[in-house]
């Protein structure tokens, strides 16, 4: 074999220029995407700050006269702001409920092997994939029969259909990352199971709980079908209220867009607070 000859290092024009161009191109592309992403949102928010007359009048790129009248209408009219409260209510109940049942289930899947466990897990995941349209009518009748119709409990329970499987899946992933020796040590140290679970185990998977809670909140907050079908007056979510903006004077665009803009707030807040964990969450602790 011939001995390799050394090629002395040449001083070349810095190839860093090539990567600098690539980096600028990437940044330009992402900036363009974010602008396109924000355009429809900007438009809705801009509209919410105008009066209906201005909206249907001549077209403006930017709103000329700003007004907070639409927001005032929503925040003072009970039928409007109760919509938000109702939505928040069933979302919170659902998140708590989903986590409550998912935690022990995830623990069972993670720590034990039992008859039918794989099939059960698969069956759970298929519920995430169930088309909501299929369940509308029977759920409508079912919740009427048990007297939960038009309460936040109805929607919260209905949403567990797809949130519980997801929560189990996420939590199981995080739990499997905790070595079983911790359970065994706790048992040897004399911890009762509830105390072990709450005091020792939960803190170890708290980011997993956070991620599961985030996704439960997200999917419950955005869902419309069940929320609208299972409620009528008392528990009506904001989505249903938004459909009633047509009046004799025509479409109340201002109020409609103001209502829509306000629905962005909880979502934006939640993302902001969990932003550091979002990446971890989407990796679901297992990817």
């Amino acid at each position: 074999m011939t001995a390799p000859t050394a090629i002395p290092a040449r001083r070349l024009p810095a190839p860093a220029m090539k990567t600098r161009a690539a980096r600028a191109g990437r940044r330009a592309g992402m900036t363009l995407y974010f602008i396109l992403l924000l355009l429809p949102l900007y438009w809705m928010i801009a509209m919410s700050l105008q009066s209906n007359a201005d909206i249907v009048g001549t077209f403006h790129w930017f709103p000329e006269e700003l007004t907070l009248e639409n927001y005032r209408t929503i925040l003072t009219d009970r039928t409007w702001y109760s919509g938000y409260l109702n939505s928040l209510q069933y979302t919170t109940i659902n998140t708590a409920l989903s986590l409550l049942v998912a935690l022990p289930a995830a623990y069972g899947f993670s720590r034990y092997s039992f008859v039918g466990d794989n099939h059960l897990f698969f069956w759970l995941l298929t519920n995430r994939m169930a088309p909501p349209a299929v369940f509308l009518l029977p759920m409508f009748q079912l919740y009427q029969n048990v007297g939960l119709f038009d309460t936040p409990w109805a929607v919260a329970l209905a949403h567990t259909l797809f949130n519980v499987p997801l929560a189990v899946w996420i939590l199981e992933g995080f739990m499997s990352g905790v070595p079983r020796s911790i359970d065994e040590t706790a048992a040897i140290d004399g911890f009762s199971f509830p105390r072990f679970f709450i005091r020792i185990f939960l803190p170890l998977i708290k980011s997993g709980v956070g991620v599961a809670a985030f996704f439960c909140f997200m999917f419950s907050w955005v869902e419309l079908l069940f929320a609208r079908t299972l409620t009528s007056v008392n528990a009506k979510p904001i989505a249903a209220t938004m459909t009633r903006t047509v009046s004799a004077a025509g479409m109340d665009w201002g109020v409609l867009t103001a209502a829509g803009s306000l629905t962005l707030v909880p979502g934006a807040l939640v993302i902001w607070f969990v932003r550091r964990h979002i990446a971890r969450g989407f990796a679901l602790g297992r990817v």
Partner: protein
Amino acid sequence: MAEIALRGITHRYDGEGDAALNNIDLVWENGGAYALLGPSGCGKTTMLNLISGLLTPTQGIVAFDGVDVSGLPPTERNIAQVFQFPVLYESMTVEQNLRFPLRNRGMSKPDAQRRAEEICDLLELSELRRRRSKGLSADAKQLVSLGRALVRTDVAAILFDEPLTVIDPQKKWGLRQALKRVHQELGHTLVYVTHDQTEALTFADEVVVMNAGEVVQKASPDVLFERPAHRFVGTFIGSPGMNFLPASRDGSIVSVADIDLLDVGDAAIPDGDSELVAGIRPEFVTVHPASAPGRLPATVKRRQDLGTIYQLELSVSGERVIAKVAERPALAGSECFVEFDPGHLMLFHGDRAVDGVTPRHRGAGGAAPR
């Protein structure tokens, strides 16, 4: 082959804070096998990345054969690197992995294939040549990583960043043999970073010992063992490390526990003997039942029969001294006398060894094998 020189290198991550490397001047000669040894965080990986071009120094120059390459990226530098965890293109077969660096540099496929086969033979990977690299064992994967480094004909130096960390202990020896074989056949400059002194001392012609961002000593393994230039080298190298005892100076005579041991002659030592420390490796401490000139009284605290070596933990005027002797000394009770082999007794002022000291006594000899 290249001579790699680091001149005046200081490097800070993120431009501020403590320097990872502090004013380093170092030359790696053509074709040598070097180890970079030091504890975690001493800066050895930083130095490696500066040589390979993955980092640009905040201050100072990296030069290959006299040419400043500090701003050049890795692809322009004719170096190859093997990482701690095997880094492979897992969707490719072994020979595809080996062809990859060559194809990127424009070599034709038949030439690249021939070269890949040569290296497979050298590393005894020929049976695995067509296998998907994903399913291989850790040591085979590291061999493939090594192969990717060797396959390029323009490589001047190969850098290793703790490459045996994830390898099973039984396989480590085989990999080290492979590296030695490669070095003998191909003659690249090799720089091997490790925190394991056994690896460093058995692999390298010369070892660079680092601590806290500075080069402490650069010497052959023998010299590092017998004549450490720095207290850190005395402690870090050897298992266990060097024993240190406070010493005091009267004129040019240095004594430990009131026994005269060394004469510093003309060596210029500033006043203040609180900084004077005598150092002796456990391998050069002998234990005797009777007194003699140059021997210090000691009490045995613990004995350990380690098979080939007998190790004693002693107290010498309140200081802990470990001795490694060939066989169990004949002692009545735990009172005895220790003798420090005069040829290996060192004096340190502060952290640095003092040159030109001469022993006051000729010893009885009989140091333990290392």
